[in-house]
């Protein structure tokens, strides 16, 4: 079998390198019976396009971020919700604890999880230091058009962002139409947006989760041993990928500092203010993405995890 696999990640990126290694491992362990054909760099279209083409059988698998995952299983986007996590240990804990539930939601959406491929923490970058939510009101904040999560977050903070498609952001930053953006540090550097911002808020806005998924219809056709090869290696390699992206993001923050981007560390009480705004934002997403019960479950699991670690 050849699995046609599409992703937005560009050729030559770590993402594609890991994917290629994964493909090699799968070919080796399946004795050449199974392999991928990789379509990088958004050749096939954006994430929603890829999902439609997978549903039609033209492609079979893809790497997705929240945009695509939300199209398949909205509940999983709880992982992307505003001000939920403070560090990657918390992310790993919640992802592991609720994994079977997420897997079930994804399968109901017609996809099988091969592995999590996290994008990483997303921060807010602005042209002025942000010491409190009030400072954010002075910022012309960009928002990725049509994404409910930042919409809820900014609504809770009390600012009205400027919705633009991501391809227009570079231009909008240059013209001053927007002077605040959010993305992962790695992407901020890669997209060259960092030349137009001065400050970075220390508190992450959200974590951005990603997943590598294969059509369930196709997956079910494979014999059990091949399924095993796919999933076992998928978990292994994409966990590696997640760890490398975390490293890349940490490196990118160092690059940003070198390039003169200031990091504003929030006072304890201000951080708490943002946190309660996050809570409010997550409530705003109830019914849109997930049920109230599920959110409560995730939040309380996180609370007891924090207490257990003495935080």
């Amino acid at each position: 079998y050849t699995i046609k696999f599409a992703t937005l990640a560009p050729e030559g990126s770590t993402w594609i390198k890991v994917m290629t290694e994964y493909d090699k491992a799968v070919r080796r362990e399946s004795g050449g019976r199974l392999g991928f054909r990789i379509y990088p760099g958004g050749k096939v279209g954006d994430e929603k396009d890829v999902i439609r083409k997978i549903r039609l059988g033209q492609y079979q698998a893809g790497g997705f971020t929240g945009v695509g995952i939300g199209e398949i299983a909205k509940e999983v986007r709880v992982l992307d919700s505003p001000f939920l996590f403070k560090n990657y240990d918390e992310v790993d804990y919640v992802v592991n604890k609720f994994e079977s539930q997420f897997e079930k939601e994804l399968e109901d959406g017609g996809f099988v999880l091969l592995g999590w491929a996290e994008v990483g923490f997303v921060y807010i970058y602005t042209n002025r230091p942000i010491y409190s939510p009030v400072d954010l009101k002075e910022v012309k904040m960009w928002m990725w058009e049509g994404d409910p999560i930042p919409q809820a977050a900014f609504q809770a903070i009390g600012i009205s962002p400027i919705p633009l498609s991501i391809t227009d952001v570079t231009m909008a930053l240059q013209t001053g139409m927007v002077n605040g953006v959010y993305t992962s540090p790695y992407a901020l550097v890669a997209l060259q947006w960092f030349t137009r911002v001065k400050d970075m808020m220390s508190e992450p806005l959200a974590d951005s989760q990603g997943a590598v998924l294969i059509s369930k219809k196709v997956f079910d056709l494979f014999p059990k041993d091949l399924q095993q090869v796919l999933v076992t290696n998928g978990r292994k390699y994409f966990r590696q990928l997640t760890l490398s992206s975390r490293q890349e993001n940490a490196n990118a923050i160092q690059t940003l500092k070198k390039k003169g981007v200031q990091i504003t560390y929030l006072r304890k009480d201000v951080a708490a203010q943002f946190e309660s705004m996050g809570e409010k934002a997550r409530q705003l997403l109830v019914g849109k993405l997930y049920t109230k019960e599920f959110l409560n479950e995730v939040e309380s699991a996180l609370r007891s995890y924090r207490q257990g670690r003495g935080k």
Partner: protein
Amino acid sequence: MRILHAVDRTLTAIVNAALVLIFAVMLTLAATQVFLRDLFHTGIYWGDVAARYLVIWVGFLGAFLATRGGKHFHIDVLTRFLNPRARLWFNAFSDLFASVVCLLLTLASATFVREALDPESTVFLGIPETALAMIVPVGFGLIMAQFVIKMIESIVNAMRGTVEKKAAQ
């Protein structure tokens, strides 16, 4: 023939009205968005997405009207030199070909809406994506109907030899 014309006229009138209305909404939305963005530093968060869906709607309705008026891009370097009657036969043949293609496109679009889109997915203001995408099969279906009507007209005219009257128009 007369029934055919009545159907055609009614359909065209409805499409005309819908086209003008949707265009007005689209223009208003796009202009409002610019004013909000550049003057008030805010925006309707689904505005651009909605405007693009409306472009598709306007496009299909426009394509429907293009069919009637023979305004689809085509090569007429050869047919230009034919006599009017022969041209009618050529038109009938082209319309037959286009009808068949549009029929296949209608079926393909119906499959697309049914299988590739998530029936629970909404795009803006809670409108399901399947409803917005419905213009694709409906549009191709309407265009097909228009080609069929044109084809019948051409054949009838060619056989009746009412060519002179047509050509004089």
